[in-house]
């Protein structure tokens, strides 16, 4: 019975994702893009939650793994005939190979996970501010290398000619995969130990938990999900190094914080709620009408509104919209 009730923590977030997908399916084609984008964001924010939410350690570096996953999937998906045009300096090993949609996503996840493991090996010893700054350093280094290293990607150019296979359906499945992975991890022995170290590192150590090892496991899994989400992202729209850098870091962290960083439910709700607001403002920037009022917001309003919202949530309700609790329709038996 307890296990069945625990399933609602998975079914709640999954149901919201499916509802968003169904809404996306009935709106016009031009608005469908907003829903697809929101679902990819869900996957990214869930990746952030796996590490930040369960460990309580801040990371500015996860967009690195999104970027690396995107680069891996992108490079391998561009048709061989078009590679010389957009990536003239590509390494030989990458020049003559192209893989399908699904395998590129799996490779993206693998690249994200392996990179997170190697970055985490030294970095997981840090916490608090030091972790924040060091993971920021990871983001800077990744951005810098991808920007100028033309052997592994388009460098300063945009990833054009990647097949746009992330349709609404693929984004939905991707978001669901991320949610399931995060749920299974959080319910597992490892997820529980990591949350114990978040609540009280000293007490968790005293009962034999290795903070370092648990954080490393979570970091690797969240890198895996982030890489996968990066693969989804590069198949959604043509990316360049700037689209997987500070702005994306800001918006996804805002989503996680606004929703409630310590729960999967918070991550999903935050991602979808902020996406909805952001998309509405994006439409409003191009002019729209609400209850007969004509609204024509100047460009740039979106970031201001999201920034104010994020600061307000941090100040007034630091646990986020969901209070950082998991979704529950029925209370857990005592």
């Amino acid at each position: 019975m307890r296990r069945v009730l625990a399933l609602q923590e998975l079914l709640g977030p999954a149901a919201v994702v499916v509802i968003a997908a169904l809404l996306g399916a009935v709106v016009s084609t031009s608005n469908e893009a907003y829903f697809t984008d929101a679902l990819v964001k869900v996957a990214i924010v869930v990746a952030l939650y796996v590490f930040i939410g369960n460990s309580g350690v801040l990371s500015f570096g996860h967009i690195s793994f999104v970027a690396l996953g995107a680069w891996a999937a992108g490079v391998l998906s561009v048709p061989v005939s078009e590679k010389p045009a957009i990536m003239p300096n590509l390494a030989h090993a990458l020049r003559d190979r192209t893989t399908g949609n699904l395998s590129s996503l799996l490779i993206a996840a693998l690249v994200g996970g392996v990179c997170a493991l190697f970055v985490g090996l030294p970095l997981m010893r840090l916490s608090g501010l030091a972790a924040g700054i060091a993971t920021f350093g990871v983001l800077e280094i990744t951005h810098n290398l991808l920007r100028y290293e033309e052997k592994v990607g388009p460098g300063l150019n945009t990833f054009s000619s990647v097949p746009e296979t992330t349709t609404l359906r693929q984004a939905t499945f991707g978001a669901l995969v991320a949610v399931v992975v995060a749920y299974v991890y959080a319910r597992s022995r490892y997820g529980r130990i990591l949350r114990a170290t978040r609540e009280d590192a000293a007490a968790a150590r005293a009962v034999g938990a290795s903070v370092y090892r648990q954080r490393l496991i979570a970091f690797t899994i969240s890198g895996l999900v982030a890489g996968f989400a990066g693969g989804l992202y590069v198949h959604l729209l043509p990316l360049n190094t700037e689209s997987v850098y500070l702005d994306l870091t800001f918006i996804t962290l805002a989503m996680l914080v606004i929703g409630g960083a310590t729960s999967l439910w918070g991550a999903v709700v935050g991602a979808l709620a902020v996406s909805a607001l952001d998309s509405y403002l994006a439409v409003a920037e191009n002019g729209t009408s609400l209850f007969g009022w004509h609204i024509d917001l100047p460009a740039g309003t979106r970031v201001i509104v999201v920034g104010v919202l994020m600061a307000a949530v941090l100040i007034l309700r630091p646990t986020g919209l969901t209070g950082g609790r998991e979704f529950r329709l029925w209370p857990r038996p005592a």
Partner: protein
Amino acid sequence: MTLAFLNIDWQTLADATALGSIYALMAVGIGLVFGVLRLVNFAYGQLVMAGAFALALASQWGWPVWAGILLCFASVLVLSVLMDRLVFRPLRGQSPAVMLVATFAIAFLLQSIALLWFGPLGKIASSLAYLNRPVTIGSVDIRKITIVAIVVAVVCLLALSLLLERTTIGLHMRSAALDFQTARMLGVRADRVIGLAVLLSGALAAVVAVMLTVQSPLVTPDFALRDTIIVLAGVVLGGMNRLIPATLGGFAIGFATGLLGGALPTNQSQYIPSFVFGAVILVLLVRPSGLFMRGRVVERV
């Protein structure tokens, strides 16, 4: 004598020193607030950006130089007090990581307000452009701003250290930075100390804005963003908890990036950020309390 084997001439060396001096000032600005609030202000660069836009507007309206600098100081000080009242104060008592995320949000907020207000192309601040002309010392040409920046930084740092070492409020600030709770119990007025730290930090941001606009007169909404990221890294590199190590860290990282940027060919200097942040990560791992700090901080239960 030139360091010919590294392809470094005197101008590069002087520029690197000037950049290091400006970064040292930013490091002090960030370190002062960190000392009393335990808050890393990611939005510090946006204070500098606001000051730079004030200068640009003043030069667009044809104001005299002194009026422009006055406007710059006024707007940066008002903004930093507002930031303290609206953001820092409600966040007191939160963990440093939460405050870092919050100021990260404020940085983006201010940047997009500037984007709305001034547009992505930015404005030109040209009133002090004559400082970019070179002056000849001996047989070497050096731009005036290089010398001005170094002198201003040294004067500011001296004045600040006098304030901290020789006045009562300075003593209060130093004790608050050491242990805020104990200092309050011994009669240090928390709000006065924090207010002064915020004001001093704002004034330094205004000075930095003046210096940076001379070096790069085009002011865009992301003005000083990159500099802030590098200075933050430098502050952590030097040691966050004390002002002098933080300042040294800021200077070192500015000097190093300036020197490498001037000396290396482009196909190598483009990777400077990777080297800098790689070094920062390495230092964090080997000496978590900073490069110029003695002893180590161990958390105990």
